[in-house]
């Protein structure tokens, strides 16, 4: 079904390395926040979400430990990794078919080369709906709405798929984080 189709799309993407543009809007379409940064993901649970503007925020995980670094607030948080804690929408990229099946109702919409999967959480989560957009089998954008009807659009810019990513990308190094 649609879950299997989604898993096929996700699992064909062992790694993703892209810039992102994120826009958060309220229910009447006013832009609440726009941010940019870089995202790297390696299935199943390695992620680096680094927003560079308007504030520097870094979320990194090697699949065991999750680091969250907020430069402006001078906060470093370390905890054991689990997908719920991660609260990073991009974590969905690493999901297994069991996780997808257990946590979401998935619907596929096809439009020529575009595939759009809508995921509705079965269990209350940080978002009430997520959409993953693929063109020719490549993830190009994500969209989420949460219970305040705020919508988050994440567009991937110049995405690279299935490239080899250095392990150091998925570890938090306090010196380099602070010095940037």
């Amino acid at each position, binding site marked *: 079904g649609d879950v299997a189709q989604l898993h096929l799309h996700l699992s064909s993407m062992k790694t993703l390395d892209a810039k992102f543009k994120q826009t958060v809007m309220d229910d009447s379409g006013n832009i*609440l926040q726009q941010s940019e940064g870089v995202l790297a993901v390696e299935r199943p649970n390695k992620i680096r979400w680094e927003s560079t503007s308007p504030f520097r925020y870094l979320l990194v995980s090697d699949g065991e430990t999750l680091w969250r670094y907020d430069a402006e607030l001078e906060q470093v948080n370390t905890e054991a990794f689990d997908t719920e804690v991660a609260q990073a929408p991009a974590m969905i990229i690493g999901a297994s078919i069991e996780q997808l099946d257990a946590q979401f109702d998935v619907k596929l919409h096809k439009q020529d080369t575009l595939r759009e999967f809508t995921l509705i959480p079965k269990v209350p989560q940080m978002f009430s709906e997520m959409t993953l957009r693929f063109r020719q089998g490549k993830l190009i954008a994500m969209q989420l709405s949460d*219970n305040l009807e*705020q919508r988050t659009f994440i567009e991937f810019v110049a995405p690279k798929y299935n490239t080899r990513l250095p392990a150091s990308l998925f570890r938090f190094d306090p010196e380099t984080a602070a010095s940037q």
Partner: protein
Amino acid sequence: CTTLPPAQLGESWQLKGRIGLWLDNQQESSQVDWLQCGDNYSRIRLTGPMGVGGAEIIATAKTATLNYKGDIRHAANAEALASDIGWPIPVSALRHWLRGRPAPNGEIAARISPNGQITELQQLGWSLQFSYHNAADGDPLPQKIDGRSDFARLKLIVKQWQNAPQECSQR
């Protein structure tokens, strides 16, 4: 980017900024959007740094409501709801501290700078340090507040102050 505040901020205002909380060994950060309409209406929205995971507390004179992760809860005041979602912050006092003013209840000890701005304040078990936009004249509005209590640390960075007559009239 931080925009300079309006010269005169009335009693219907909106603040946008970032808030960090240190609690035991756990730390949280969030965007904060605080709409205050006079004395009896506060709408506080916390959005995760990833733009996901919104929590909204609406507090009026009589009751407070929390909308978080798809469920709605009510309580007598905003403090109870804020600590429900892991943010045990003194919401009704913070409303005054945000303006660089002490809360109306509870003794205070304060340090005031030569131009009349509160730079340090002890109240309700919190000790707070304020730094202001360098607007020499006009309403002294804090740009950063760093507060500590015996169980938590709170840091607020203000990105934008604005008067909010329309937002307040629409609600």
